[in-house]
């Protein structure tokens, strides 16, 4: 019988700890977490809304490489255009430009580019500065 009562006592303690955890830790943490998520998300959105979709964004050359790697496969319909001085390189279905140059040889990771998203023309244009 001792064993039965001790087990019952342990069960009661564990249940009490569980109720305490849910009431005093889990539920407040959950609502605080939701409030934090909302607040942070609103701050991020406020900055993103201040920047229009077709705004000229300044990026480094590695952004071209990641964009081409992300978009340029057989099913891609978006042209990735890189303008360097008087030369223009277009990437569409592969990571090789229309002239056969690879994206890593076209994009200079040390240089800055201005990125324009032209939805009407279906292209993302990077202009070297």
């Amino acid at each position, binding site marked *: 019988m001792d064993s039965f009562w001790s087990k019952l006592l342990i069960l009661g303690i564990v249940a009490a700890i569980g109720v305490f955890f849910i009431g005093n830790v889990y539920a407040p943490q959950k609502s605080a977490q939701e409030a934090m998520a909302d607040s942070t998300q609103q701050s991020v959105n406020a*900055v993103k809304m201040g920047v229009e979709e077709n705004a000229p964004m300044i990026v480094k050359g590695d952004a071209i490489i*990641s964009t081409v790697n992300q978009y340029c496969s057989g099913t891609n319909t978006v042209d990735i255009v890189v303008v360097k001085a008087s030369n223009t390189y277009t990437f569409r279905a592969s990571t090789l430009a229309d002239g056969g140059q690879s994206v890593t040889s076209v994009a200079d990771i040390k240089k800055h580019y201005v990125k324009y998203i032209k939805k009407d023309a279906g292209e993302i244009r990077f202009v070297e500065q």
Partner: protein
Amino acid sequence: MQNFWAVLVVLPIFTWYSMFSVLDRNYTIAQQAVENIVYEYTQIAGKKGILYKSILEEMDSRLSKYGPHEIYLTAEKFDGSALPVKTEGWDIVDMDLRERGYDLVNISVIYNKRHPVSVMYEFSVFGATTGRNIDITLFGNASSYIR
């Protein structure tokens, strides 16, 4: 065997709260650093009246520590009309903004990758989804009067 069941209950809770604390702290520190960097260089541009390319590159290299990002530059001039005259992008780099009568310089930075803390906001400690699509990235935004 009793230890096994106890650990099975406690370990996921401990892991979740540990991960949340570490990621949330990581985001807060990185976010503060990014805001400070953007603020610092906006103030420099505002005081000098010119956003030099070298200054932009220095800011960019410091921001690169936190991952790939995009920078949006604008300068605004209030000339009495309803909307201010706005110049944006690379056009304002190395431009003498004070000489040309610009009043404000603004720098916004948005990081491309969402921070892993977003995942912690999407799931509760017991693995249930919170029904929210959270897309938190690092960002910075600052404006300065051209003095």
